[in-house]
């Protein structure tokens, strides 16, 4: 089931005018920002479908940038996000694409700062709810229903077990888990929805395991 909580239906509390094109877009931007770990210097945003056709009218651009600035859906600074971004030195470009996508409200965000680069695809599925469907070329399905632990690692034996053991030791229950890789033996991505929040010290413990490349939590 895509929607699990009543507050996805009666909510979110948000700045208008559109839950899918404003609030959902802000949440996609904010998820990308969290995964990037800091404010990016440069962002390219590719818009598809209804996003591409109506983004100015709905303030989708303003909302995505607001999210990238770490604003929540009801943050009253949202309307000025484009100005705030340029003041803070975040350079954003928007590209409208005619390409057909599975979902009409799709955005691809490419965040950069020096060598640090992150590419995220998000879809806004209605009522302010969004899903992240792609991360640095890995297909995934993150609903945002629960905190997610994202672990990049070398595609080798024992990696999944190492992470699972640490979670078990700290009594953290896994609700959903997905491992994806681009090709055998290269890099892989574990996305793990947990019932409890994985705090910083635990993330550090996972980082120290053999073969781990990066660890982030999206809550």
């Amino acid at each position, binding site marked *: 089931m895509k*929607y699990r909580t009543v507050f996805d239906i*009666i909510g979110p509390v948000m700045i*208008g*005018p*559109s839950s899918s094109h404003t609030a959902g877009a802000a949440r996609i931007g904010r998820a990308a920002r969290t995964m990037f770990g800091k404010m990016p210097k440069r962002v390219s945003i590719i818009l598809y*479908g209804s996003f591409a056709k109506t983004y*100015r*009218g709905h303030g989708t651009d303003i909302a995505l940038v607001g999210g990238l600035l770490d604003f929540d859906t009801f943050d009253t600074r949202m309307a000025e996000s484009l100005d705030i971004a340029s003041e803070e030195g975040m350079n954003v470009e928007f590209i409208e694409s005619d390409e057909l996508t599975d*979902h009409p409200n799709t955005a691809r965000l490419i965040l950069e700062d020096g060598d640090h680069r992150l590419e995220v695809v998000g879809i806004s599925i209605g*009522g302010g709810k969004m899903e992240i469907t792609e991360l640095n070329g890995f297909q995934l399905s993150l609903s945002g229903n629960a905190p997610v632990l994202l672990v990049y690692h070398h595609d080798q034996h024992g990696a999944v077990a190492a992470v699972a053991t640490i979670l078990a030791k700290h009594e953290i229950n896994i609700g959903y888990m997905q491992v994806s890789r681009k090709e055998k033996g290269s890099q892989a991505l574990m996305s793990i929805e947990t019932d409890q929040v994985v705090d910083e010290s635990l993330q550090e413990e996972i980082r120290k395991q053999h073969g781990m490349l990066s660890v982030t939590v999206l809550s």
Partner: protein
Amino acid sequence: MLFRSVAELVEYAESEQLKISDVMMQQESDVMNRPIEEIYREMEENLRVMELAIERGTTEDLKSKSGLSGGDAKKIMMYRENAPVLLTGTTVLEAVASATAVSEVNAAMGIVVATPTAGACGILPGTISTASKKLNSSREDMVRALFVAGAIGFCIANNACISGAAGGCQAEVGSATAMAAAAVVEMAGGTPSQSAQAVAIALKNMLGLVCDPVAGLVEAPCVKRNAMGAAIAMVAADLALAGVESVIPTDEVIDAMYKIGRDMPVSLRETALGGLAATPTGRSLERQIFGNESSE
């Protein structure tokens, strides 16, 4: 209990002699692992945001950035209070004015609660606040009504869709109208099954409604569709309370809505390429608002 359809929800509620709001609060508490009091408080907070939006929209002189919307809620309220005769009645017109108010606040980039979406955010606040005055409802009845609406929206969102881009306006204003109709039925003391009938009756009258926003803005025709959605919700609730039943069961109406949405051309699903958006006036407004940088 995790209900997947309106039929399951009603059957469970009636067999356990619960209200729909009880079932929704219980499920939320179980699934999200949160105490009921905490969930209740969050919903009460949502109600407060809704009431503030009604207050703003009916008293302030709102105008959206584009100039396409604002000021109608005040106009309707004045007419409702001063006209020598009303063709409908004070209750329906109050629901309509309040729904318009919230929708105008949304268009002016004010704070609203998406119910289930921002495009349809006026209908639920408009109907619940109006019904509460008419019925002399308690605060708890109003908060519970939001849970009823949530339960219905939950079934629609999981079995069909609630975004205009996916299913047209029937998925947004249609869903909101159906949710509101069920909510006010419970407020008026109706049974879970009568709430379900109100959903079917309301949603049937929204089937086929396309999403064709002028210049891509959530303003024209969205504000007026919120207004009329509130009116339909109030009347659908009365029909259900009168014992009128839908020939087609509620879940099948929801499924029909979903399939109609799938069949709808892209031009009529929130792309501003067809319908009212593509009329000569719609196009000319789009040019005025966005100038040459318009995406067309």
